[in-house]
């Protein structure tokens, strides 16, 4: 049953941040964040646009070095051992990461080669991932003709080929219709339940977060506002509160200093030109 499999037996910490901080000039995007995520957890990061979620994920995925503080991911330090961290993580970014000019299979082959999956195992693992994500029939079609939900599932498949213990999903259901969203979450749960992958997820759909995440961190102005299970956080606000209420009461409106014009321009242009 979704969400109720939180009786994770092995409570070892897989992701640990320590006073993790990132500044851009005057702006402190992430401000002394200390967090830990346990093995096999689906951990939600929620907060208004520009709260610092993406910056936090960029640091944990080694795309961006922190200004101060550090973090370990699966035992590797993001500052001292970024190359090792990259071997331990899968990342499905908010923007597109599947190449629209390649077929599904070719996209997976590219990932398998980049991540050093042994040649003998590539075909088998790619086919396994395609099957798991329900993309077997579409394997040899060019991704430019995929639906949004299929692209997302392909991207998750891409991020899994090297069997990383930790997976980062940055708004995996953004722009998808309800049934495509359901399909994505089904696969995410399946991966966690079958292989004990740890997932760190962001989303603006509070209903999804409520249903599928074991624990949540509320982030605003670069800092942690609260951490807990969905029920714990709801209880903070009111006995019959929804997670939407939690969001509005504890986080408030979006930050003016959030996403830059360049980010928005980039995301919108990419979305438009890719159809």
């Amino acid at each position, binding site marked *: 049953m979704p969400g109720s499999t939180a009786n994770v037996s092995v409570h070892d910490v897989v992701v640990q941040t320590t006073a993790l901080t990132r500044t851009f000039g005057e702006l402190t995007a992430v401000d002394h964040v200390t967090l830990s995520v346990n093995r096999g957890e689906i951990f939600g990061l929620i907060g208004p646009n520009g709260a610092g979620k993406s910056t936090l994920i960029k640091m944990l995925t080694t795309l961006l070095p922190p200004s101060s503080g550090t973090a370990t991911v699966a035992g590797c330090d993001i500052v001292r051992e970024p190359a090792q961290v990259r071997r331990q993580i899968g990342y499905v970014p908010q923007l597109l990461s599947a190449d629209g000019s390649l077929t599904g299979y070719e996209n997976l082959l590219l990932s398998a080669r980049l991540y050093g999956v042994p040649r003998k195992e590539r075909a088998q693992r790619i086919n396994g991932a395609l099957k798991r994500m329900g993309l077997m029939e579409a394997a040899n079609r*060019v991704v430019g003709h995929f639906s949004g939900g299929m692209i997302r599932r392909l991207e998750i498949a891409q991020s899994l080929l090297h069997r990383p213990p930790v997976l980062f999903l940055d708004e995996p259901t953004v722009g998808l219709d309800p049934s495509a969203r359901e399909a994505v979450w089904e696969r995410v749960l399946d991966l966690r339940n079958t292989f004990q992958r740890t997932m760190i997820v962001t989303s603006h759909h509070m209903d999804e977060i409520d249903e599928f995440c074991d624990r949540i961190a509320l982030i605003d102005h670069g800092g942690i506002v609260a951490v807990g299970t969905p029920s714990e956080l709801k209880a903070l606000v009111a006995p019959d509160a929804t997670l939407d209420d939690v969001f509005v009461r504890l986080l408030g409106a979006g930050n003016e200093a959030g996403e830059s014009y360049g980010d928005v321009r*980039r995301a919108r242009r990419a979305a438009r030109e890719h159809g």
Partner: protein
Amino acid sequence: MAMSGEHVALPESTAEASRRPALGDYATQTFAVAAAEVQKLYHDPLELLTRAVQPVLWLMLFGEVMARVRGVAPGNVPYLDFLAGGILAQSVLFVAIFYGIAAIWELDLGVLQRYLVSPAPRSALVLGKAMSGGVRALSQALIVYILALLLGVGIDLHILSIIGVAAVIVLGSALFSTLSLIIACIVRTRERFMGIGQVITMPIFFASNAIYPLSLMPRWLNIVSHINPLTYEVDALRALMLVKGTPDYGLPLDFAILLATTAVLTAIAARLYRRMGY
């Protein structure tokens, strides 16, 4: 290690993580990036045809007229023969120098982040991209060869010469696409890049021996052309592709300069490329 029933780690959950990177990985990763680009060309080959138009126009319009001007080509080489190598180098340059646009496009889409979170060394990523530019350029070489033969240019069809030409083209293309990538990493938007791309293409092309010999140049331009890597690319191409071709600087020097420049540019690009994810 005791774990409750359904949470037992299946064999599949042993990550690649603990593997140490092997030497062969670097080659595989470089190849992976280049192979992906070749697969894209395979799905949409129209691009190759449209790119063939430019060298055809240069050879047939510019070349045919300039061939009537006496004294441009050095020695007893017909001008069209002299021009063929230059135009080949130029086609490669024009494709490669706008290569950075593709990198900015990938940044905007998000595809670039996918490369950056992978454990592949940044230089392998850059080199793979550079090699793929070379593959595109080879298709143009084929067009130039066919046309040059039709126009009666004394092309050397010995297999070793052809392999040599292919090597120079891949190297030249890698050099200028890496330069282009460096510019892309610095300017980061397509609008700015287009402007700069136009501005630097002209001097690289005209301050070289591509369409006239350096001996015709005033001294200052002659010096500039001698530090332009395109000059050495053209020199090697002419020497290898023409029956009567002889290099001005010697093939070892030509190759050494192209290789060294590409290596330096790759090292710079690898440093800048990692910052593209910020």
